[in-house]
């Protein structure tokens, strides 16, 4: 495959698309598919065949506002239809060229206006199983440019210049990480993609892997060239069967087109990727645990250093990045580091994809520039809290993150700002809670999660989370005392300071942040045996009083 051949493929696809007057893009991501998007696509195809117009019906990845699904977008007009079912197929096809169907029109200007799409630029526009669709939208151009025109150091320099930081949660500068692996000595190096999206309530990585798998592969290949690796692994959760099958197809297609394998683009660069299935362990998102899991062992973390950049998979230098980080690479290479650097806030550059869920009107995937205010995400893009309830808190970062209260909503989203508020960026889950959610109960939910997910290797995490869970359960059932609260805070700092890996070190965050902002709720539970949100069942309190 050469650049000329690549451009020829892109040209062919564009010519083929020009034959059609209209394109019907049907979102087939999990949320829409669970509401009958597959039947809808068949109905649209049938209606399109018999209508006499030149219509192309295409399956695409997630378009974003999942709560309005199943979604259909008509191009070139860019009319978005919501809650479409197979019965509407005839009406939609009939309306092509005239006025859009009024009752199905999705008016979400406020939702889309503030978004900037870099990672999700192809979502909703390409068929994820067709490599040609990806190539037609400048896919693999970055890889071939890198291989023929840039040195590995040049690539690393460009990534460093962009200011991209790891999107898995920690926010380690990507350029720095690549530089370390590139400098490490070793005949064999590995590139690993962390697709073990264990954070419950987040699904950005799933959407990227399912909706635009080639983007991840291209990012990995560029990384491999930059650090001098010839072998890659994508570690995906077994709970995401569609992502696994889409990636398998994408890898096969990429090999067929000579974009993976030996002597890619007639250069000495060899690279291939294998998929490894996770088996349901949250701790495997931690890089040393993930390495153990790829090696076929129990996913328990190791003390660092040595960092995987020096000694990772089978003791070789290994680069590990998150799915979203790799998805950012190709656009950075294409558009230059400065382009990326110009987006975002002072120390957090570019955009971030968030999975907006919970008690909010427009649930789904959003991609926003860093530095945007939380209030803009929740009230404008998300459409606010529905059903007349009031906003209480937003939870970011999953079990390692914290709850941010209403009075902090005017803070801009960045790695440092979230850390300062006692939460973390995390992989990008954003769960909105209203006045019907009890913060003590939420803290207990996360601690229970960390307790069952603790691998058991180090004592602070194994025993600490279990004790914290017991204390929180006592408070939630009305049996708690003020001494319990003190003990809980004490335990939080022990677990935070003394645990071996990220799971334990961040496990107390949900408790600490709710204690910081919603302490009164804990005190209500303890002193007045009352749950202000009416969630906790205070059965134990009755016994104590009697």
């Amino acid at each position, binding site marked *: 495959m050469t650049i000329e051949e690549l451009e020829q493929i892109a040209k062919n696809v564009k010519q083929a698309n020009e034959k059609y007057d209209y394109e019907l893009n049907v979102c087939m991501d999990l949320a829409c598919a669970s509401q009958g998007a597959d039947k809808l696509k068949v109905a649209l195809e049938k209606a399109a065949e018999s209508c006499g117009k030149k219509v192309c019906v295409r399956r695409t990845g997630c378009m974003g506002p999942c709560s309005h699904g199943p979604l259909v977008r008509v191009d070139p007009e860019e009319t978005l239809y919501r809650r479409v079912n197979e019965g509407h197929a005839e009406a939609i096809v009939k309306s092509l060229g005239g006025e859009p169907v009024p009752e199905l029109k999705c008016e979400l200007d406020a939702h889309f206006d503030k978004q900037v799409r870099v990672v999700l630029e192809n979502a909703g526009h390409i068929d994820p199983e067709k490599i040609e669709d990806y190539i037609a939208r400048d896919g693999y151009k970055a890889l071939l440019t890198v291989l023929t025109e840039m040195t590995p150091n040049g690539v690393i320099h460009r990534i460093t210049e962009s200011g991209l930081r790891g999107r898995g949660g920690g926010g380690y500068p990507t350029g720095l990480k690549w530089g370390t692996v590139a400098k490490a000595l070793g005949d064999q190096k590995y590139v690993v993609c962390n697709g073990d999206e264990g954070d419950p*309530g*987040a699904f950005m990585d799933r959407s990227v892997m399912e909706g635009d798998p080639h983007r991840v592969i291209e990012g990995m290949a560029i990384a491999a060239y930059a650090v001098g690796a010839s072998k890659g692994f994508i570690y995906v959760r077994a709970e995401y069967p569609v992502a696994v099958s889409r990636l398998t197809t994408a890898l096969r297609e990429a090999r067929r087109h000579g974009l993976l394998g030996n002597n890619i683009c007639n250069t000495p660069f060899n690279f291939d990727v294998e998929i490894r299935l996770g088996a349901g*362990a949250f701790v495997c998102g931690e890089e040393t645990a993930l390495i153990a899991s790829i090696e076929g062992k*129990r996913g328990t973390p190791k003390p660092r250093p040595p960092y995987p950049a020096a000694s990772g998979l089978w003791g070789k230098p290994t680069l590990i990045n998150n799915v979203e980080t790799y998805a950012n690479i190709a656009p950075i290479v294409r558009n230059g580091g400065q382009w990326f650097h110009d987006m975002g806030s002072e120390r957090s550059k570019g955009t971030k994809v968030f999975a*907006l869920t919970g*008690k909010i009107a427009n649930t789904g995937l959003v991609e926003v520039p860093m530095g945007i205010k939380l209030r803009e995400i929740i009230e404008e893009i998300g459409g606010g809290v529905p059903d007349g309830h009031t906003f209480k808190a937003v939870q970011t970062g999953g079990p390692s993150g914290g709850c941010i209260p209403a009075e902090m909503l005017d803070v801009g989203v960045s790695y440092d700002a979230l850390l300062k508020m006692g939460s973390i960026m995390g992989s990008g889950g954003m769960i909105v809670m209203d006045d019907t959610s009890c913060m003590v109960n939420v803290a207990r*939910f*996360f601690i229970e999660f960390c307790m069952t997910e603790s691998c058991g290797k180090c004592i602070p995490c194994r025993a600490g989370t279990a004790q914290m869970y017991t204390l929180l359960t006592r408070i939630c059932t009305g049996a708690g005392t003020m001494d319990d609260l003190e003990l809980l805070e004490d335990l939080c700092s022990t677990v935070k300071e003394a645990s071996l890996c990220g799971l334990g070190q961040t496990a107390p965050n949900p408790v600490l942040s709710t204690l910081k902002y919603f302490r009164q709720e804990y005190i209500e539970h303890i002193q007045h045996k009352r749950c202000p949100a009416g969630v906790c069942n205070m059965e134990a309190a009755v016994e104590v009083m009697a």
Partner: protein
Amino acid sequence: MQAFTPPPLPSEDKRWKIVNGTMRKNGYARHALIETLHTVQSSFGYLDDDAIRFVARSLRVPLSQAYGVVTFYHYFSLRPPGKHTVTVCAGTACYIKGADKLIAAAEKHLCIKQGQTTPDGQVSLMTARCVGACSRAPVALFDGEVVGEMNCENMLGQLEGWAAK
């Protein structure tokens, strides 16, 4: 050094050939343990002692390590699943929207706890740590099919539908 010969298949069952295929594809390498166990679980529905022993011997992995891996990861099951499986997602978004009530209702209806199978082997009740359909929370999976915006009535209706068949 004598060349390694893999042990014979445990029985005539054709599914063992699929399992063997996975191991052969990976060159009987030790790191293929999790991959192979995935194949066993997808072929047989669960992992029994024979399967774990066979895989451990074929890959030259100590039995203790194989058993350790099986019990470490939630995805692997040591008990056969029921004819039907209902999985309620217990991720954060689903929990906020009342997944705990769904689980309680299902437990009451089926008279079993989560993670168990009814005594007649008809229905297994499972919970998941997030299936990634958070925008449609709360979510339940009926035999693998994702259904969003679930409520107790719909769920119990589906369970009764299974019982009637």
